[in-house]
């Protein structure tokens, strides 16, 4: 079977699997989060935490709960990493240096999972399983909770209550993420991903040398790494490592897990709104963006553009031979389109156009289809922006899903859309002005510049994938990127919750023929246009100096 046939077939299989899971999973999540009943497993948890699960929270207390929970998570994870040598299953690993620990703790609590460390040579299993894997679950659940709070802002009227964060958090973790991750982990083990607590194997190699082979609880972490759009690999090589992602089947499974929840959440959106077509329109916009990006990346990588690739006959540098160009391009697109950040190939080695396309996926603000939850709230904010301008053009003050978009809403939307570009541009601006940055780059010129842009884009958008090449272990980068991740996650979340509150306090405006319909292909097209124009206008100069200059050369 040729690469192209295999590539197209796995793409079709992926689409088929997602289509099968779309309705049941999307509706299940909606039902889970709107159900008034608590399970027998959950009640003791609430009692233990001293939380009344039946009390509705106001916007303010919902936001405080999100922030409070995340701050505590951050502190615990930081301590766990710094003090890991005192914990069981430490494998003799020393505690992390403070700056790396801070960067890592921020990275996992913000669902970014940027890695400035190498898992196998830095971390013990307690830190991996009790620290990182736990955050893989709960940081994903935080994202979904915030998205659901925003949806409730649209569905609820004349109230300040957005639900109960603790209930949302617990239910998403226990009822949605845990069961799917469990099945995913079992399937990965079946595929050959390692899962053990045995100590390092030291083996003699054929050439007479010795090699240490680290195994560990990888499959269990791998499943949630993809499912929660986290992306922090058990091993440094992430999903390119044969113990994490051994073959074509596991690769397809991982891509499926990456896309599963972000895609299904558009169904959740439609179901919760009682307007399924709205969910399809959002999914349509997301699909248009990611399919275009996938087409560009695949064309660039498979077409072997560039001198070296043409000499070699294929753009295989930085790609695993067991995956090839098609599966590498697909994985790269899925992981950057969803804020996952897992990689099965080195994006640094992609052709300029291919590498540029995956960079743009993140610059879009992670909405194609974006991280779990973050994709939904991100695209809803962009929809408000689209409706604001387009709504005026139908001769009414703008409204989305029955809610007026007034100054209050626009203020939060404007601040939301400002945050990430500000973090990226200012971060890159400062970093590039420093002479030390040139030394950290793995390449000179435009490609080195792209490495810096990619690092800040990845951190501020909570993607976490690395372009590679660049060395980010200096305290400067550890702190700058930690700051970008932290602010890039929680500042937008606070604006989203404030927005949700202000929407929920409004009454509902009934739809008439004079109302701009937002569930149509026309609006989905407009939404795509707005996202592209906003991204283009913000990042065009940076892109011109990096991937565009390179690709045109």
């Amino acid at each position, binding site marked *: 079977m040729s690469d192209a046939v295999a590539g197209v077939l796995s793409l079709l299989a992926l689409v088929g699997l997602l289509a099968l899971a779309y309705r049941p999973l999307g509706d299940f999540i909606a039902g889970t989060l709107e159900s008034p009943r608590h399970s027998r497993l959950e009640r003791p948890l609430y009692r233990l935490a001293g939380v009344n699960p039946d009390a509705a929270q106001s916007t303010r207390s919902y936001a405080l709960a999100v922030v409070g929970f995340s701050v505590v998570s951050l502190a615990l994870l930081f301590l766990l990493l710094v003090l890991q040598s005192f914990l069981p299953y430490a494998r003799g690993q020393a505690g992390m240096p403070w700056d790396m620990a801070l960067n890592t703790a921020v990275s996992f609590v913000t669902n970014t999972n940027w890695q400035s460390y190498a898992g196998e040579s830095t971390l013990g299993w307690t830190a991996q399983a009790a620290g990182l894997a736990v955050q893989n679950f709960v940081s994903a659940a935080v994202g979904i909770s915030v998205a659901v709070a925003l949806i409730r802002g649209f569905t609820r009227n004349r109230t300040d209550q957005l639900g109960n964060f603790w209930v949302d958090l617990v239910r998403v973790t226990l009822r949605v993420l845990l069961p799917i991750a469990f099945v995913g982990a079992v399937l990965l083990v079946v595929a050959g991903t390692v899962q053990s607590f045995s100590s390092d194997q030291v083996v003699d190699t054929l050439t007479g040398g010795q090699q240490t082979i680290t195994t560990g609880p990888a499959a269990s972490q791998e499943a949630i790494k993809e499912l929660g759009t986290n992306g922090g690999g058990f091993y440094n090589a992430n999903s390119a490592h044969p113990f994490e992602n051994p073959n074509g089947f596991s690769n397809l499974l991982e891509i499926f897990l990456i896309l599963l929840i972000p895609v299904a959440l558009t169904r959740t959106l439609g179901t919760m709104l009682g307007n399924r077509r709205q969910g399809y329109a959002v999914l349509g916009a997301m699909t248009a963006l990611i399919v275009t990006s996938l087409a560009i990346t695949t064309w660039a990588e498979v077409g072997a553009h560039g001198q070296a690739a043409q000499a070699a006959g294929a753009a295989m540098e930085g790609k695993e031979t067991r995956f090839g160009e098609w599966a590498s391009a697909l994985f790269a697109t899925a992981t950057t389109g969803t804020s996952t950040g897992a990689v099965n190939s080195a994006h640094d080695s992609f052709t300029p156009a291919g590498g540029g396309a995956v960079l743009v996926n993140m610059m879009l603000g992670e909405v194609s289809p974006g991280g779990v939850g973050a994709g939904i709230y991100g695209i809803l904010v962009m929809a408000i*922006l689209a409706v604001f301008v387009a709504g005026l*053009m139908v001769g009414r003050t*703008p409204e989305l899903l029955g809610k007026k978009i007034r100054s209050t809403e626009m203020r939060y939307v404007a601040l939301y859309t*400002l945050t990430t570009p500000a973090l990226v541009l200012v971060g890159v601006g400062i970093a*590039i002005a420093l002479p030390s940055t040139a030394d950290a780059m793995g390449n000179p010129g435009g490609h080195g510049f792209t490495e810096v842009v990619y690092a800040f884009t990845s951190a501020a958008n909570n993607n976490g994938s690395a372009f590679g090449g660049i060395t980010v272990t200096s305290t400067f980068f550890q702190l700058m990127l930690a700051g970008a991740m932290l602010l890039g996650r929680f500042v937008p979340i606070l604006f989203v919750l404030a927005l949700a509150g202000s929407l929920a306090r409004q009454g509902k405006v009934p739809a008439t023929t004079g109302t701009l319909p937002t569930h149509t292909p026309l609006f989905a097209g*407009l939404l795509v246009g707005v996202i592209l124009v906003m991204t283009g206008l913000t990042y065009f*100069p940076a892109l011109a100096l990096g991937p565009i*200059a390179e690709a*045109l050369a």
Partner: protein
Amino acid sequence: MTLSLLVRQLPTALAKLDPRHMWRNPVMFVVLVGSVLTTVLAVADPDGFTVAIAAWLWLTVLFGNLAEAVAEGRGKAQAASLRAARKDTVARRLERDGSVTEVPGTDLVVGDRVVVEAGEVIPGDGDVVEGIASVDESAITGESAPVIREAGGDRSAVTGGTTVLSDRIVVKITAAPGSTFLDTMIALVEGTSRRKTPNENALTILLSSLTIVFLLAVATLAPMADYAGAPQRTVVLVALLVCLIPTTIGALLSAIGIAGMDRLVRVNVLAMSGRAVEAAGDVGTLLLDKTGTITYGNRRATSFVAQAGVDPELLRDTARLSSLADPTPEGRSIVELALEQGAPDVPLPAGAEIVAFSATTRMSGLDLADGTVVRKGAASAVLAWLDRTSLPPSVESAVAHISADGGTPLVVAVRRPGEAGQILGVVHLKDVVKPGMAERFAELRRMGIRTVMVTGDNAITAKAIAAEAGVDDVLAEATPEEKMAFIRQEQAGGRLVAMTGDGTNDAPALAAADVGVAMSSGTSAAKEAGNMVDLDSDPTKLIDIVEIGKQLLITRGALTTFSVANDVAKYFAIIPAMLVAAYPSLEALDVMRLHSPESAILSAVIFNALVIVALIPLSLRGVAYRVATAAGLLRRNLLVYGLGGLVVPFVGIKLVDLLLSSLFGSAL
């Protein structure tokens, strides 16, 4: 708009360069700062390019101010003519003891009573408390036909500055000098009391955030370009920034708002705030009074139904004869209908005695000289007159039919000398719906607006007229309280309500409605409660008001879209020009093939400034509004202003570049 108009407003535009004024518009304020900065650079190091950029940036600011000045200028002209009406008047104050003292009009206080006689100007706003007079209100409404103002009822309000033409009235002053209707009008049309509307505020937030994004993008481009080995001059960065920030909409935003109010003034409607105009675009329910808005307000004859066996022409001619001396609108309409149907236009026979309608007989008609008696009236009254107990079957069924239709049957009978009286047939009188109303309501429905007819009629009559006019709903036998409850109910459902009213009992409903249009002929209570005043007192205008509101919002949205879409072309002009030195491959982005980097940047800046001037007429006139569904409007406007906004600047910048290179070829 002519060039001379622009030139005339130039001094005002220059005066608006005051930073305290500019600060209110963040986008243009950034341009102002850029202009100052580039001017400093041009002075420090005067090369042609820097000087040209600085000059065009100043022009950009100036053009924005010019747009605002021109928009305001139209109101100022109107304010001047209104001021002429506010000339100092001498008021004849009526003292408690009945004596009259002459005081300056400006010394009046609320509660004073003044006497105004024919030929005198009413010194202030008030209510007529004594007498009746015809008043010339042309100073305010532009309408030369005099109106009647009388004590008591809904026609008691008079406006300061209008002239009494006949008779004598006593007016109780209700507004202190300086806050009269005329003062309010002057302030409104001048725009001195103009505040940003809610939607303008929201849009300003969006534009400011875009400005900040571009500020960051341009500021960080400096170190990025340094790294790339193509350090940028500050003047170029400022030029890029000004081109990217949404100057087009930023410059025209306030002009659009002022022009929207002005368009209302042109149809003789005064909006007390821009907020009301915006709300008009959002209106979901229109409450329309039946009488005068939907129907002519008088019942009119629409057909003659002759009794079986009676010559229809006889009925027609007799009905005409009986109405010849009838001065009521109903009577006149019978004469008109008869003539339309071919009745001979013969005058009233000599010696005929006119019998007017009276409440006891409930009939009117003529007693002719030959003894023939002609009567028309309600069926029961005619039966009583004829001493009969029942109508002939064919007439009976016609009467029943007309009543069920909401009309009024008028039975016509004649009694010749020596004969028994004969019922000839029935005249069908009905409330006639104005032509074209059904079509307008259908249009409103397509715009997503529900029309509700409000009437004091009973439910049957109301339903019949509603069905004919094609309104969506009826509020029959409506009391002011019911009207109010209805408004509250619509608003609770999230719909904005617009209504008109003139009476004091309309005031609470006018105040509650999102768009309350008070008739200028109405009471001062109504005028105070509403947020718009219609100087023509034409309730149909509500529909125009809604369209003007929509047009205002569409213009704002269209120019925002256009402004943002323009940026794409500007990037393609400027970015390659800036960075081609570092990366020659970027030349491929220069799709316009511009003459040189300098001319590329200058062309973008010049286009950016000129497009403001080019769009001033559109911002004043407003984007053409066509009735269509929201989806249809969006598709059309996106195509014109979105796609147009993408394409136009590519052409425009190229043209400016061609002109520049042909003029200064070697220097650039």
